[in-house]
């Protein structure tokens, strides 16, 4: 079957079978995903994740109330799913955590190991989060880029995940906000009988597309500035992406839950947030499609996906916007997980939700201000569940607010968690992402016992 992709092979075979539905097609066992295929999905919760939004306390409500009032706290109630040691999860994450009670690990007081004097500027903290060590604006090498340099498939799906900063890469990694709109031939040259308006329609669009590809494929015999060289590299990736995405989106790879990603759950009541859900869930659908494609192709591949959900800078509207964001996160991830289970790849895919910093311990009346430590969490079929790190007793919070500039401390470095995942789940040395001398500077924090196997 040299030079014929499995998708084409299957499609051709099916054409011969006539009326068999593609979506009901039973995947032959010989196409089962390779043992070596592993994925990591990094979900950046941008704006600064409040530890008490995702994981509220289930006791001492009066203390939290005195620190924050009603505007910035999830009140203790019997509906809160408890995950132990006085911690619960936001109702929006309840379904996800219920399903994955033993497959989600919560990491307390997470922070960046290299943001030494924790800067609470969004931009600086985000830069640390993206680069994983190098906070300098002019130094654009990121941990994801280094993985890409070493053969790990890297895909970004919108937002700040675009900032892969992969200057070392021969070609930029694939960064696409929305697979569905990634069609270069979808151009609007008009057709009309009126000579004043006719622009040649689709034929001309195709022709122009060919010309653009050709212009990009040659090496012009003129001087090319470094910036233009970067531009041309990215253009090349664009054309390659257009080809590969059209294949990923093929109906052959439709997953079982494909249609459901577009259905806004009842818990997301606001139209603004409904739009965000659709866009965010669609990214997970695209990842599921991609994983399905890999499975069909029988490819053994290690892939890192990066996507982001913004809006966590909740200086105000903490409760209303925070609830919606948690509902979006929980609903889309739960759907994705269900899809992966049906695909049989649940154990191969691990997701980490992370942020650039946390929020203040006390409220500001409407929300919370910038802080330091936040809570991250990891989920997936291969995760050994539980809470990791020091859970701060609510009674200590008032003192902590004074001692630590009104912020949760950092105890577990984000980079250490990533190294754990890379090494234990992906089978990749953490020193590839964080080479020396970075590697040695990332604090060790005991045995995470992160994975089941």
């Amino acid at each position: 079957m040299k030079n014929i992709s499995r998708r084409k092979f299957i499609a051709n075979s099916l054409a011969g079978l006539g009326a068999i539905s593609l979506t009901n097609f039973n995947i032959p066992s010989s196409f089962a995903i390779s043992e070596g295929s592993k994925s990591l999905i990094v979900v950046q919760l941008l704006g600064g994740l409040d530890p008490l939004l995702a994981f509220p306390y289930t006791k001492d409500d009066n203390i939290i109330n005195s620190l924050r009032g009603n505007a910035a706290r999830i009140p203790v109630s019997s509906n809160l799913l408890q995950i132990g040691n006085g911690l619960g999860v936001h109702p929006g994450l309840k379904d996800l955590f219920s399903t994955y009670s033993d497959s989600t690990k919560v990491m307390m007081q997470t922070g960046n190991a290299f943001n030494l004097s924790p800067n609470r500027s969004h931009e600086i903290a985000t830069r640390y989060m993206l680069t994983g060590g190098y906070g300098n604006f002019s130094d654009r090498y990121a941990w994801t880029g280094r993985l890409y340099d070493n053969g790990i498939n890297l895909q970004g799906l919108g937002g700040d995940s675009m900032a892969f900063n992969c200057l070392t890469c021969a070609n930029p990694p694939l960064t696409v906000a929305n697979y569905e709109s990634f069609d270069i031939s979808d151009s609007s040259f008009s057709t009309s009988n009126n000579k004043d308006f006719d622009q040649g329609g689709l034929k001309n669009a195709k022709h122009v597309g060919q010309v653009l590809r050709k212009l990009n494929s040659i090496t012009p015999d003129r001087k090319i500035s470094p910036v233009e060289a970067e531009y041309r590299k990215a253009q090349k990736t664009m054309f390659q992406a257009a080809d590969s995405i059209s294949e990923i989106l093929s109906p052959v790879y439709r997953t079982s839950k494909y249609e459901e990603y577009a259905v806004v759950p009842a818990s997301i009541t606001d139209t603004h947030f409904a739009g965000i859900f659709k866009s965010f869930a669609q990214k997970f659908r695209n990842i599921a499609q991609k994983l399905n494609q890999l499975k069909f192709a029988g490819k053994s591949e290690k892939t890192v996906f990066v996507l982001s959900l913004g809006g966590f800078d909740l200086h105000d509207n903490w409760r209303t916007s925070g609830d919606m964001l948690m509902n979006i996160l929980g609903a889309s991830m739960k759907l994705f997980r269900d899809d992966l289970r049906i695909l049989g790849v649940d154990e191969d895919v691990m997701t980490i939700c992370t942020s650039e910093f946390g929020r203040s311990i006390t409220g500001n009346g409407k929300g919370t201000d910038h802080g330091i430590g936040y809570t991250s969490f990891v989920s997936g079929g291969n995760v050994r569940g539980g809470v990791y790190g020091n859970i701060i007793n609510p009674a200590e919070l008032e003192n902590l607010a004074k001692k630590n500039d009104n912020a949760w401390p950092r105890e577990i470095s984000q980079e250490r968690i990533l190294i754990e995942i890379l090494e234990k789940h992906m089978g990749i040395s953490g020193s590839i992402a964080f080479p020396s001398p970075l590697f040695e500077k990332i604090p060790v924090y005991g045995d995470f016992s992160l994975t089941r196997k």
Partner: protein
Amino acid sequence: MIEGAAVFSATSSKADYLCLEQESKVIAGKLMNKGKKFLPYREMKSKQILKLKLKLKAEVLITKKTKFKNKIKFIKSTINTALTACAAESERRKLPEIECKISLINSDISLTENEVREIEIASTANCSSELNFSVNSPAQHGSAYMDAGKLFYKAGYGNFADSFTIMACHESPHVCSSPATINITSFGSDFVGRVDKLEKYRNKISYKEARHLINKLALNDFSILSDDLKLEDGYNLEAIVNKLLDPYLVSADLKEQLQIFRDGGIIKDGVTPSIMRPLPDAWGRRFFQASTPLESALDQYKAFESFQHEFFKGYNPNIDVLHYGGNYTSHAVLASSKYLSPTWELLTNIWYGHFGTALHDFNGDYDGYYVRNYMDIISKNALGNFKTMMLGVNPKNCLSQTVESISPDTNPPDRGVLCDAASQAWLSNHENTYYSKNQNFARELMELYLLGPNDLVTGNPNYSEQDVVAATGYMSGYKKITYQSTRNYSLDPQRVITREEIVWDPARHDFTEYTAFKGMPFEISGSVDPVKFVEHIFDNHPGLPRFIAGKLFRMLIYTNPSDEMLAALAARFKQSDFSIADLIYSIATSEAMFSEAAYQPTCIKSPLVTISETLRNFEIPLYGNNVHQSPTAHIFNSTLSSNSRMATALSKLGERPLMYDTVFSYKYCGRNPNQIGEDWLSAQYLLQRTKTLIDHITYAGWSNNSYFHFTDIFEKIPEAAESIYNITPSVIIKYYNKVYNIELSESEYDIIYKYLTSKLDDSDVAAPYGWNPSDKQLMNEKLAGLTTIYASMSQTNIN
């Protein structure tokens, strides 16, 4: 192109052999049994000998008991012995006089950008075969180097004068001639400014330099280079810059656009628009009276400003007012970028991104006042005064509008960004009180508006977390109120609507005596109000002028100015009391502006700039000619929604003017040092860029409301004046090259030429088709495609 002539002549007439370091080491080492460094004897002073005392202590074979003066005596004696021996050796090895003359063979050289050329050196016969050459001091714009005994010069970007020095050296014994300078002189003398120098450049600039200026500072609108700016063999730099700084400079096609609004359409090419009549009173009076003058640029500016203001006031009888959010606001920004002064608009858009608001954060979305007011503050001060933009003409207005002073019938007094409703609401400062602190505004005031997190020159933090706490207290005291107003901008002047406004409420202000910038020369403490705090930063904090001036320079000229350049810019900015116009004038007329660093492309253009440039260059209108579709459907109903596709496109590209998703606004080139634009040129951004360009370019040519046809471009091509058949594919390509300010390689030219003369067959293979300028359908197709191709090319999208 670099053209140059260089003459090199050097004679080494005498080998003046010195007691060089190496020989000194050998001789002194023999005497002292150690190889310590010695200076050549002619350069050695007695003091230096004394200084050697401690260094040589270990090597000198004398005991600790030896008296100090004896130690010195011994050292002097030892060294003198060494030097005497060295001098004797020098005399013994003295070379005979050499008469060796070297010169350049190719004294006239002509180089293109980045080209490498050997500079051939000839020497007279009596030169020793051991003669070598080396580059002594490097070239400034290109690079000079020796390779396998040959001298090479590699040109940089631009057309620069350059110089470097070389030396001729005899190997053994080692002796060199004095350095000889090679001058690469540029006949055109383009871009000979020194990098990072704010000193004034010459006033007469070349056409290429003038285009560079327009490319950098005026949205590539080359129509600005009118004949009155010309000098003999060049352009008047001062005059061009003054023109760019003119707030009332409008685009050439604005008048026609305004005539459509005023007159209900215009007769074009003998064709009367489908509906052409004066605007019905109810509508017409809202925009222009039939007598609205449109003759002078000032008239047109005022008429456009009025139009933009009305745009935000509401026009639709069904909803009374326009919902300004989202695409409509972007559209208004795009309209200004297309028709008003390109430099003012470029700066306006930079400031929109700098302050980074999102206007939907204010709940009064039925009232365009907030949008209009915010846009006025920015656009009127964009090339005015930064301090005024921040604080308003009268800073006290930020403290004088209170609940009591609000009038239902009059507008609030003019205020700066500091207490403007849109900014306050965007960053939650109206919720910042003495009893409930909200740090959002205070933090971003320092990080985004005034200082940046770290000083651009020293790298030190400009403020601390404690300063954020203090500033939050200082900035507290504003409040959002709701009241009933007849100031509603609707058609019914009696109608009362509910409005929101930001007012100063001292009862909410935190009068705690905080200290900010503790321990710094610009420390401030006490009970401080918002105006006093911001004025204090302007007057005392050194980070402000560096941050603002540095940011503007990086975004406009090149992304990595030196610390010295930043310091010079900051000093100038501060000295002018924060005049943006003065700063831009200094930059635009500086050597740095016309240096290699400025000429070399460093930026990916922002989506708004890319789209505006194309609209300007081809005079593609934003609104159609037959604007009145029906008595109840106004121009906006018929054209705005469809034209907002361009604003939608901006949004898809990640740039949503005044509707930013985060405080970072858009990732503009130069926003941070060395940032070239989007953090990474992702496939997604490029695809959107390409599709967007196709979308808005082709739409302009087929919209029913449009009065633009691609064949209109022919009118701008001089060759067409005589006969349309003079428009050949190569003439068209030449014209597009000029409009887009790019140079095609031969291979690129061939691909584009082939596109113009072929079409796809049924198998989607390009087959020869031919070219005929009288075939309107073919021309429409080819020019729509060609414009798309050019707009998508990498050269067009970088600056």
